[in-house]
Structure formats: structure tokens, C-alpha cells
């Protein structure tokens, strides 16, 4: 037998043969440690997590810049990070960047608010009432299968080229992910909790407010994250096809003048806005789903 304590770990053979105890048990048993002792390397430099997460993107930027300056791409094919920064400075000074970004942001927020509200309303309707489900769910499932971008020409005929058709398309883009996830979450709320609510005298409204909606919150937040991606996709297309403003319009304009740097700039802005949106939802999750981890306060 060997001691499995820490002090005995190093410098001992990997396997030990125990002395024979009960002769009736036959041959002695060879003992090994349940897990191989991992030698700890001392003096490792600890890099903060934020810094470690920045390293990847920074390496990509450096490679991108090098590929451009070393002539792998021409400046019309790919704009270098520095050229993109210059374009940003140029458009900012002309107030082109701010105004177009703001108008895109406004459309996206409007569409998002309307779409999320509609998605939640439909999910509650279909999730709580069999009539709602039988009546609406097949229609929604069918509508979901229609590519939204295929609707663009129709929407132009219906609503013209003003703000409404753009907001409409964006809203449509986030109804479905919110609906699907919230609906599934409502149906997935633990029946045992619903029963507990019933036995303790919750009314139907109280049951919805205190049991079903809080229980479906995690699913709703998943839907919201999908929606936040969808809105930007729809926004670009809506603005590239019929708009005189917005980031999509800016990309389209840049194409006619071969300004690759502006195209990259707009794409970079989309990427950053996407990151910001994701961070917002994550913060939201941390506050709304605090009960999952059970720490005090907050």
C-alpha cells in the first residue's frame, strides 16, 4: 500500500505492489494512482482574460494589414485596416458616417421593438391557448419558411420606398426567432411548478405572470439574440435596394465609386454594432437570470 497524500506524490514509482495480505485472495494486486500527477510549471506569467481575448482579433488585424502592404491584394480588392480608419475619419468629418449610422440604428431599433413585441404576443397567444396554437401556429410556420429577402420587391409595391417598408422588413426578421424560442419555452415550463401555482391559488393571470412568463424568459433571451443578428441582415438588404440613407446605402454607393475602404468600414461598423448588441443581451441575462446561479444581491 502506498500513501496517496500530496507529500508522497513526487519521486515515487508510478505503481506499487502491495504486500500479500490474505493468502486466500491469491496474487497481490498492483496499485496505481487514480489520476496521473500533473507536474505544475512554476513561474507562469498570468495574462488577464480581457487581454487574452484581444490577442486573436489583433493578430487578424496585423495579418490583414501585412497582406495589403505586401501586395497580396490590390487596394480595390481589399482595403487595409489603416485605409479603413482613414475612410472613417474622412466620412466622419463630412458628417456622412454619423448621420447614416444613426438612421440605420433608428430603423433597426424601431423594427426590433415592433418585431419583438409581436413575437412575444404571438408566442403567448399560441403557448397558452390551444385555439391560438391551432389557428396561428401553422400560419406562422408557413410564413417563417418564406425568405424575407424575397419579400422586398412586394413590400416596395405595397408600401413604396419610405421608412415604413424598411422597418416592416426588419420587424418581420425578428418576429420569427423570438416567436419560435419563446413559444417553445412557454410549452417547456415545468408542469410541476404550474401545478404548485394552481394548488396555492394563483389565478390564470397570476399563473402567467408569476410562473409561465418568468419560466420562459431564458428561451425568450435566446430568441432575442437570434433576432439581433437577423435585424442587421435585413437592414443591409433593405437599404441596399431602396434607400437614400443608412449603412447599406453607403455600401451600395461605395460600390459605384470603387471605394472598397468605405465598404469595409461599413462592414466593420456592423460587426461592432453586433458585438455591442450581444453584450447588452448578456448583461440583460446576468440581471434577469440571476436566480439560476443563486448568488446574493444584484
Amino acid at each position: 500500500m502506498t500513501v496517496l497524500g500530496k507529500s508522497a506524490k513526487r519521486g515515487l514509482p508510478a505503481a506499487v505492489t502491495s504486500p500479500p495480505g490474505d493468502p486466500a485472495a491469491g496474487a497481490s494486486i498492483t496499485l496505481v494512482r487514480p489520476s496521473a500527477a500533473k507536474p505544475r510549471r512554476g513561474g507562469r506569467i498570468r495574462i488577464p482574460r480581457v487581454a487574452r481575448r484581444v490577442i486573436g482579433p489583433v493578430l487578424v488585424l496585423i495579418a490583414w494589414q501585412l497582406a495589403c502592404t505586401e501586395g497580396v491584394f490590390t487596394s480595390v480588392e481589399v482595403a487595409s485596416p489603416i485605409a479603413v480608419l482613414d475612410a472613417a475619419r474622412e466620412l466622419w468629418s463630412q458628417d456622412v458616417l454619423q448621420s447614416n449610422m444613426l438612421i440605420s440604428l433608428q430603423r433597426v431599433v424601431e423594427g426590433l421593438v415592433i418585431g419583438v413585441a409581436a413575437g412575444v404576443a404571438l408566442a403567448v397567444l399560441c403557448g397558452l391557448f390551444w385555439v391560438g396554437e391551432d389557428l396561428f401556429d401553422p400560419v406562422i410556420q408557413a410564413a417563417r419558411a418564406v425568405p424575407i429577402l424575397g419579400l422586398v420587391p412586394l413590400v416596395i409595391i405595397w408600401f413604396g420606398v419610405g421608412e415604413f417598408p424598411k422597418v416592416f422588413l426588419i420587424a418581420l426578421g425578428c418576429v420569427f426567432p423570438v416567436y419560435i424560442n419563446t413559444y417553445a419555452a412557454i410549452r417547456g415550463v415545468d408542469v410541476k411548478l404550474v401545478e404548485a401555482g394552481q394548488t396555492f391559488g394563483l389565478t390564470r393571470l397570476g399563473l402567467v405572470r408569476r410562473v409561465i412568463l418568468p419560466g420562459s424568459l431564458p428561451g425568450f433571451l435566446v430568441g432575442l439574440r437570434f433576432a439581433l443578428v437577423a435585424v442587421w441582415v435585413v437592414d443591409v438588404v433593405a437599404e441596399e435596394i431602396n434607400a437614400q440613407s443608412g449603412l447599406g446605402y453607403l455600401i451600395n454607393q461605395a460600390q459605384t465609386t470603387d471605394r472598397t475602404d468605405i465598404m469595409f468600414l461599413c462592414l466593420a461598423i456592423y460587426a461592432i454594432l453586433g458585438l455591442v448588441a450581444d453584450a447588452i443581451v448578456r448583461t440583460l441575462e446576468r440581471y434577469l437570470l440571476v436566480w439560476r446561479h443563486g448568488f446574493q444581491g444584484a
Partner: protein
Amino acid sequence: MTTPVQAPAATAVFASGVTRAFGNREVLRGLDISIAPGEFVALLGRSGTGKSTLLRILGGLDPDYGGEALVPRRRAVVFQEPRLLPWQRVLPNVALGLAISGPNGRARLREQSLSALSEVGLASHARAWPVALSGGEAQRVALARALVREPQLMLLDEPFGALDALTRARMHGLLQDLCARHHPAVLLVTHDVDEAILLADRVLVLSEGAITIDLPVRLGRPRDRGHGEFTALRTRLLTELGVSVE
């Protein structure tokens, strides 16, 4: 809610000819039961005999039964699992579904919930999240949630079945204290013969869809598991449940 029906005087539970079938399987076949106010009744039975089915019917969770069943309006259920809402802290979980009208209703509700929590020894956990509680603590919160409504009938569905033996013993003591203070009628569904004899004024055995044994427990409290009469009762009940005792 159906209109109140006059039950025989001094009853907390009155059921007569209760039937319940799942598909072709008749689980309850004309079951009669009556429990007096303040009486503690334990219901034993092998698994699958319909103990929980009866409890769900009395708790209002199963409307698809036949026969007559009458229960008080103020009743509370404690399930085998605590069934606390994970997204509410302990205190609002205790007050679930309760509202006190009039001035200071909220404050009075809070006070009552807190006092129910302190009766189960968890006043300091009022602001904790359910996920942070141990199994025994969560079940005590579930008890407080039942108590705070001052129930005339408490329905307990194997409430200690998922707890370890030490915690279960402490919960037995706690439950007896609470019953001595609040005097609700209790129907405890259990498969633990000792638990039934230890706690109940009367032990019923459910078998083949009806009550086959109805035995009063005439032992003083606190009860001693080693007492001769205790052992005799245990042997009798175990035999009835199909377990031979040597």
C-alpha cells in the same frame, strides 16, 4: 369552483365512492374516506396503488374523477419535491398566491410569511434564491408555504421521501410541532410504515383501489419505535402491505 355542499358535521375531508381510471386501468374503485378537523391521517400503500392519485384529486389537481369528494377551501399541498419557483426568492415563494386586502396588506403578508419561515427555522433565508438551498431547507420552505395559509387541510405527498434519514428525522419533529400548534387536518401519503405510525392518529392502507385497513394509533407522544405496541402495529401493517416480517 363548485358550490359548497353540506358535508357531515365535523369533517375536514369527506369522500365517498371515489373512482378514477386511466384508460382501462381503474386505479380507484369506489374509495371512501373521511378525516376529522385536526386529525392526522397517514395513507400507506404499495407503489402504484393510487395514493398520489387520491391526493391529487383532493388537492384539486385532477378533476376527472367519479363519486363525491369534499375538502375545505383553505388547503395546502406539500409535494415530494419542494416545487419552489426558482426565479423568486424564498419569501415571495412562501407568499405565493396569497393576497391580504385592506390597509398595509403587503406589509402584513410579509410579516405572516416571515413568521411562517421562522417557524421552520429559516427566517434568515428569506432573501435567498431557492437554488442556494439544500434539499431539507427547500422542503422546509415548502412547509412554510403551506403553513402560511393557515390551512384547514394539509395534503402531504411523500414530503420527506427524497430526504436523507437524518434530515427526515428532524422534519418529523418539526411537522409534529407545527401540527400541535396549528391543528390542521392532515393526509400524509407515504410508503414508510414507521413514519406513518410515528406521526399519525390513524393509519389507512390503500389496496386494490379502496381502503382495506383503518387502524387508530393509540400511542402517546413522543412515540418510541421500540415500544411493543409500535412493533406490533408495524408488523400488522407490513403484513398487510405484503412484506413478511421474521
